[in-house]
């Protein structure tokens, strides 16, 4: 079954490697959650439809879906969910988006462990503030999933 992000990346332009990115740039983009810095980066694997919605409206609950939005603390963990949870269920291409926002907001998010990975939850009542403060961009590379 073609379930790894490397395979998925062939179908989504946002996941193809950007030749302009050097190793150091990749390392910066792949930074884990920043503690004590100014910004926190979180990651989420999304479908094409959700990516389009996020780029137009920000992160918001879809009708009949989770009202709380979940993120991982590394691109590799987002790739883990893409490969092991989302793609097996949907068989649809996925893109990982990176969300950067002030640490002051990050301290108000609930974190817990899902399927062995640290997960941050943005509850519905924080989403508007989250969207106002966050910079959101699809990643232009496909990280190897965390084991």
């Amino acid at each position: 079954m073609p379930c790894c992000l490397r395979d998925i990346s062939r179908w989504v332009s946002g996941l193809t490697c950007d030749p302009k990115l050097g190793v150091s740039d990749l390392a910066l983009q792949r930074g884990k959650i920043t503690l004590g810095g100014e910004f926190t980066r979180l990651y989420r694997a999304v479908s094409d439809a959700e990516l389009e919605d996020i780029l137009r409206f920000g992160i918001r609950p879809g009708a009949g879906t989770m009202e709380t939005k979940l993120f991982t603390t590394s691109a590799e963990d987002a790739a883990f969910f893409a490969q092991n949870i989302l793609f097996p269920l949907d068989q649809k291409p996925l893109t990982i988006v990176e969300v950067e926002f002030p640490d002051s907001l990050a301290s108000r998010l609930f974190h817990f462990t899902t399927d062995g990975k640290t997960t941050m939850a943005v509850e519905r009542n924080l989403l508007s503030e989250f969207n106002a403060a966050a910079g959101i961009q699809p990643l232009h590379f496909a990280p190897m999933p965390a084991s």
Partner: protein
Amino acid sequence: MLHVTARIKLLKTEEGGRTSCVRSGYRPNIRFGDLYTDGALTFLDHQQVYPGDKCEVRVTFANPDYIRAYLRVGACFDITEGPRKVGEGVILSIPENQEQNKMASS
């Protein structure tokens, strides 16, 4: 992947549950004890379910090994969205052939 059938109840909004209905295919967190995993809920007799409703569902676990110790008929679980419990359920059946196939492949 592992499919089980379960009976679930969504909490009412005033009990801390969701503010809106969920559609078949809903992907909440499923909590067994202290372990959270992702599950997909397919409603067997509804297209959408409202806070306070009960129904039977098929739960698909994409990573069943993570919560394997809890997977037995009669096991209770919580349906959560991150920290917030929005419902609860109990496993009604686990098709045997899935378990045999899983064991044969592992």
